[in-house]
């Protein structure tokens, strides 16, 4: 077998970063021409780039951290795909139904369908490329239980599935010789008329600028969690793709839906928010309050009552015999569990550090725990001095995932702007109002491939008549990136960022209400004013203060989208809970909220849009009509307990 070592066209590029200019060189700007430029090297970006390359495009991957470090590396639990290796009854139809119900029917039905249909083959492909998944007795890819999934469905590698996925895709991309530009941050995309013409960014290493001429740009930049104080997300999650798309004229949908994962670490303070995988519950862990009560039985919503165990005996029996027992309430979808934990803490039944207990120590042997949950064992041992095989963990909700993102065509992932695509966490629609665990990694693969192929086909269809980057736009992008160096006497970006995070956490968090959302919008306006005069010290070479100053603009616009949409949606559904509108509302169940950049470019416009209509042959999977499945009042009263 032959492997091309590198396909780098220009020989004098830096071997790691792709940087063409020596760090010591004065001024200058690099320029590269590609068919497809993929922004982001997580699962979505890498899969898209592989697809683009394999369908013949000259492809570049640009990412703001090193290759292999994107957020995908942190995913723990697994990839949802109805391969039926453990439960032969599983198939795409059941997965589709689970996904729609988990998203409280607000999902783009077509995306949910494509995802359920194509995920199994996308997982098999990873195995073809060298991934080593855990096995069943018969040697097939093993599948584990997760919240909201009817069958054990998550292909996994212990609790480090994301690492396996990113490494496999990274190694594949390297083997194919795809050009990678590492530690290079994109700050603008260019258009010619209504169509994409290229992208603009800077090298973190040198601070110098780079222009990509390309008719197709795929955004795969991940999420927005860094706008919240307590989060499982890393510094990279500043909503860059969301903001780039808006500035290019595309729209975002579902931005009010932010997933608070029920189980984040609460102590010590320095790791507050760090994720504790749902697999702990999938593998037998239970939730208890400070009275030692297994409280989830008190929070089973009507919508899931028929499929949830209502006694401890039945719940415990389910782990061994799934046919004759219903699922434990700890494995309800994340929004339900997170709200329940929040209510327990508010009611004064929390732990010393303000969480609840997650207990697997009293339920499984130390050997089992170390084998199934090695990184959790490691994480608690190293960072909190807690041995999870002998004591319970203290956990609480943490901002984890954004369901909202760039509004795209389901089949091609193209946005409203010709040539601009979005995949992975930065796209919207697939997960509706709440994402099921394991459905993100599947989403990255399924739609990554589709976007890569569509972007290539579009670029090829243009022939020589490609959109051109306007030099005036390049100048403007450059000036805008350098603006923070021009200011004197303003504030430092770290302070503004940390105030924004606190404000979003307090006012737009897991439980929302009108007055607080209104206050939040006022605060965001004030942050914008402060940010317009922020200063950075030092020079352009590897300067995190400058990088943050640029990211902060994106965080602010995305925060505004979330707060505005959250204020407008006067109901509670999935990842959006309004204290003042505690139940789901049938009419709100028929529409998405769409946000755009306003004409002045300084704020956000919002409008309602009807959901795409599900065809009759898919409606049959839902007992009640699609538009009204979640209006049972019982969910409200129970869930609010």
């Amino acid at each position: 077998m032959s492997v091309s070592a590198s396909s780098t066209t220009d020989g004098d590029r830096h071997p790691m970063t792709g940087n063409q200019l020596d760090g010591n060189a004065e001024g200058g700007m690099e320029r590269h021409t590609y068919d497809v430029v993929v922004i982001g090297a997580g699962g979505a970006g890498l899969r898209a780039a592989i697809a683009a390359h394999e369908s013949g495009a000259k492809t570049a991957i640009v990412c703001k951290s090193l290759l292999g470090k994107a957020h995908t590396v942190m995913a723990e639990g697994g990839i949802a795909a109805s391969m039926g290796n453990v439960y032969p009854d599983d198939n795409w139809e059941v997965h589709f139904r689970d996904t729609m119900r988990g998203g409280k029917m607000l999902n783009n039905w077509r995306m949910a369908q494509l995802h359920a249909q194509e995920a199994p083959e996308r997982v098999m492909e990873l195995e073809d490329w060298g991934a080593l998944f855990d096995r069943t007795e018969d040697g097939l890819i093993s599948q584990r239980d997760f919240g909201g999934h009817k069958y054990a469905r998550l292909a996994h590698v212990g609790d480090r599935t994301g690492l396996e996925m990113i490494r496999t895709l990274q190694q594949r991309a390297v083997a194919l010789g795809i050009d990678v530009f590492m530690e290079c941050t994109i700050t603008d995309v260019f258009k010619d008329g209504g169509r994409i013409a290229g992208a603009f960014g800077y090298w973190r290493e040198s601070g110098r600028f780079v222009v990509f001429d390309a008719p197709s740009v795929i955004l795969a930049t991940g999420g927005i969690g860094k706008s919240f104080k307590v989060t499982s997300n890393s510094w990279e999650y500043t909503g860059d793709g969301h903001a780039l798309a808006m500035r290019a004229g595309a729209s975002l949908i579902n931005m009010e839906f932010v997933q608070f994962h029920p189980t984040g670490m609460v102590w010590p303070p320095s790791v507050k928010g760090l994720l504790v995988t749902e697999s702990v519950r999938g593998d037998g862990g239970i939730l208890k309050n400070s009275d030692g009560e297994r409280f989830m039985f008190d929070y089973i919503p009507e919508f899931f009552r028929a499929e949830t165990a209502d006694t401890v005996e039945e719940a415990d029996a389910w782990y061994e015999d799934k046919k004759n027992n219903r699922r434990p309430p700890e494995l309800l979808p994340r929004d339900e569990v997170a709200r329940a934990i929040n209510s327990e803490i508010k009611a004064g039944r929390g732990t010393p550090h303000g969480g609840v207990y997650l207990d697997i120590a009293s339920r499984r042997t130390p050997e089992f725990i170390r084998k199934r949950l090695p990184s959790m064992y490691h994480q608690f041992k190293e960072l909190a001095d807690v041995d999870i095989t002998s004591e319970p963990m203290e956990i609480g909700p943490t901002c984890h995932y954004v369901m909202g993102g760039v509004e795209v065509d389901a089949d091609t992932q193209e946005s409203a702007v010709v040539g601009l695509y979005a995949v992975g966490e930065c796209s919207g629609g697939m997960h509706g109002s709440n994402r099921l665990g394991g459905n993100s990694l599947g989403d990255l693969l399924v739609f990554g491939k589709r976007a890569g192929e569509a972007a290539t086909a579009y670029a090829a269809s243009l022939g020589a008549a490609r959109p051109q980057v306007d030099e005036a736009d390049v100048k403007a992008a450059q000036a805008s990136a350098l603006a923070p160096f021009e200011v004197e006497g303003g504030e430092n970006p770290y302070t503004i960022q940390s105030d924004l995070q606190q404000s979003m956490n307090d006012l737009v968090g897991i439980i929302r209400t009108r007055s607080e959302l209104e206050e939040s919008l006022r605060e965001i306006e004030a942050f914008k004013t402060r940010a317009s005069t922020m200063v950075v010290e030092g020079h352009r070479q590897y300067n995190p203060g400058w990088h943050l100053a640029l990211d902060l603009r994106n965080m602010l616009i995305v925060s505004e989208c979330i707060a505005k949409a959250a204020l407008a949606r006067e109901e509670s559904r999935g990842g959006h809970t309004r204290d003042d509108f505690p139940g789901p509302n049938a009419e709100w169940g028929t529409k998405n909220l769409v946000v755009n950049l306003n004409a002045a470019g300084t704020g956000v416009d919002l409008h309602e849009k009807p959901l795409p209509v599900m065809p009759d042959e898919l409606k049959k999977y839902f007992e009640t009509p699609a538009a009204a499945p979640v209006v049972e009042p019982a969910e409200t009263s129970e869930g609010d307990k």
Partner: protein
Amino acid sequence: MAYTLKLKIWRGDKSGGEIKDYPVEVSEGEVVLDAIHRVQGTQAGDLAVRWNCKAGKCGSCSAEINGKPRLMCMCRLSDFAEDETITVTPMRSFPVIRDLVTDVSFNYEKAKELPSFSPPPRDGDNKRRMAQIDVERGQEFRKCIECFLCQNTCHVVRDHEENKPAFAGPRFFLRYAELDMHPLDTNDRRNLAQEQAGLGMCNITKCCTEVCPEGIKITDNAIIPMKERVADVKFDPLVWLGAKIGLRTKDNDGRTEV
């Protein structure tokens, strides 16, 4: 429980630099990376440091803490006495870019030289079968988070720039071993490991194993078995003859040398 930590950080770039004092407030449960971030936020906004997940999963924040190669996010301040000075310097085996950030491209270069996994066709039902026990060997090696601390500490290249072209380093011996032990792979990379990757230059001092934050037994489970496998192909006259005249031996069954 808050106290002022005596923190020292190397500041500079490839033209040179120095260790500077950054006394900083820290509190219970914090790690070195927290202290660095507080310095960034309050004293030196342009302090360059590479980090991502802050959870020991991505392997970005490698540095040397009091001379020991470690991840800054997994290094708890409570491991040190409160009056102890903590000195953070960049990884020594890689060229400095700025402050704590080094140019680790050596590793990305070496990754390109390694022929990738090459499986046979899937089974008739379009699936693949492997026993758990067989995948577990490779899974240990795939825990690698590419923090490159093993590469940094390996004395074959630490302070021996001249060895770099001919030596891939422990991280990639891990990768060679992983592929060699993969139940389905059809490539035989043993000669490549020996000749191109410089496996023979390793004299198993186990420094790499000691610094691995994932606890991978790099030397015992990957490098030594890999050396044995290389020795088999090199010195077994039957294997050698078999390979020459196109006969298949058990070891070479279904594999093609690359």
